[in-house]
């Protein structure tokens, strides 16, 4: 059966007869859920830019620890230029703290615009570029939060605004879902490479450097009856959920397990921004909106 799309009457479409293509383009619209994700990521982007504001001079000024010239010399001396030369960012062109702070302020304004303006793609694209350039400039100090934020914003600039039924919404949601699944699988499987995730001390190892933690949970985790099951759960949940979340009967339990996983790890590791980003991105699997 050949289906004729209402977008181009002259081009007969066979998309819907292919399960592969219907997976990427013909799913139920998820506009509401994408809006929630965009709002959440915009808030986290505000947080991200604001967190750089106080230390802009410490890191990026002419006398800063990651000043462009110094960083270039360091990479040259270490023969690391090939590793880093594709971290392109216009922020390498400036050594002024004021300019960097203006950049951060504009980033916050763009995040607010991306959250509120729903008639144009421009704020979403600019916000992605703003985050991307700052992440690329933050060589040596960037972490998983930049990674999750940047890929989330990259996919959210795809949907056409003001048209929740457009196929780009479906595509963006699918891209988020598949990428998040890859991230969860990589997280769980890389845990298996370390002994601490087998012998039950992984949870304690996360919480042990209390100088890096907001809350000291080492006393609470002292009992093996607590930290060992917690360790095993931290490993099992991302691996199992990466599969279960794609099955309708187990989607809800996988979704809520992953949300609990994010909360537990946020308390253990204090990586609030990264795990908040993960929790926001997980909304693309929210049972009421996802297939």
């Amino acid at each position, binding site marked *: *059966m050949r*289906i*004729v*799309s209402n977008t181009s009457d002259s081009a007969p*479409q066979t*998309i819907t007869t292919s*399960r592969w293509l219907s*997976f*990427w*383009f*013909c799913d139920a619209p998820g506009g509401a859920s994408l809006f929630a994700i965009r709002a959440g990521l915009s808030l986290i982007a505000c947080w*991200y830019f604001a*967190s750089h504001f*106080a230390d802009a001079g*410490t890191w990026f000024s002419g*006398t800063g*620890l990651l*000043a462009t010239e*110094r960083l270039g*010399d360091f990479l040259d001396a*270490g023969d690391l230029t*090939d590793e880093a*030369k594709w971290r392109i960012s216009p922020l390498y062109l400036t050594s002024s703290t004021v300019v960097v702070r203006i950049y951060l302020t504009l980033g916050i304004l763009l995040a607010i615009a991306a959250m509120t303006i729903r008639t144009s793609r421009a704020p979403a694209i600019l916000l992605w570029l703003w985050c991307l350039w700052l992440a*690329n400039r933050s060589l*040596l100090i960037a*972490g*998983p939060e930049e*990674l999750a934020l*940047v890929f989330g914003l*990259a996919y959210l600039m795809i949907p056409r605004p003001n048209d929740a*039924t457009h*196929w780009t919404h479906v*595509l963006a949601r699918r891209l988020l879902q598949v*990428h998040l699944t*890859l*991230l969860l699988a990589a997280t769980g499987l*890389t*845990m298996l*490479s*370390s002994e601490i995730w087998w012998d039950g001390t*992984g949870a304690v190892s*996360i919480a*042990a*450097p209390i100088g*890096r*933690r*907001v809350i000291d949970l*080492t006393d609470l985790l002292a009992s093996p009856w607590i930290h060992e099951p917690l360790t095993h759960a*931290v490993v099992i949940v991302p691996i199992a959920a990466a599969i279960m979340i*794609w*099955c*309708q*009967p187990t989607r809800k339990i996988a979704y809520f397990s992953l949300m609990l996983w994010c909360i537990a*790890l946020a308390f253990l*590791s*204090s*990586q*609030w*921004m990264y795990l908040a980003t993960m929790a926001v991105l997980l909304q693309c699997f929210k049972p009421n909106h996802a*297939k």
Partner: protein
Amino acid sequence: MDGRRTGLVHATVEVRTFSSGLICCFLFGFPQRPHFLRFRLAKQNRATGATKPAKPATDPLPPIPLRADSPQFELQVSNGPSLPSPAMAWGISTIIVVHFFLVGLSYFSTVASSSTQNLMLGTVRPYLGITHFDADGVTFCFATSDRSEKNHLLQQSSKSRGETEDDWTMVESPGMVGGDRQRRWQRFLAAVAELGNNEQTALAAWLVEPLAIAQSEAQSIRITREPDLMTTVVDDAAAPPYAAAIVRQDDGSARLVQVPPPRLAAEPIGNALLEKTPVDSAPVESAPVESAPVDKAPVDRPTGENRE
């Protein structure tokens, strides 16, 4: 009797469709909605006694696409979401496959990578680097009991070679404990400490030099790892991963001279000869510079022999 047999047949069919749906979920990664739809509707019919599938008033599940060969489906598509042309759809999905292959390649090479992975990642680095889609050394697994995950402390001393712990004072790190600012600070210190551990002290000095200049009273600087619940006595007694004396220049810049870690000696601690040797008069600027450390001259671009 006929009704009971019909019910049994329906139950068997439902179980089969449900099982096949589950298997397809695992094999193909997405559920077979039409099968689930039939299963759910048949279950509702049995409960209500209806002969035809009835749509519930409030459906807790998301809208379920119809089969492509059904007339309702054609109606839904023609009035519903717009679709790309088949050529565009296949083009986009090809790009998607390549994209996720590269992202997966990067994510699954964070622990260790084969030469094939390195070759491929080196080829596609422009794409993954520019877009920040690559993992780039990020450890996803939160903890591996590696020493670089410990809390690092930056300390300074007014002596060119602090001998006791009392000689060292901690340099305050920015931001609140556990916050994002301090996390970046910790990543930076961990990178310097790792360079120091790998005896790449010249590279470490490139990074630390602004900190040395900022501590105007300091004569030496070091990075230590804070003991915690998971460190052993041996770990805690290990030498700091990076320690250097600061040689200040007239133009305000500074050179960092590595202070070699103490070595095991046969002489007992408290040897009278050692006690008489003034610590501060140790030839920091002569002996360490000439012998062990790989120094750097931050004022000018370092020459080749100073690099590691």
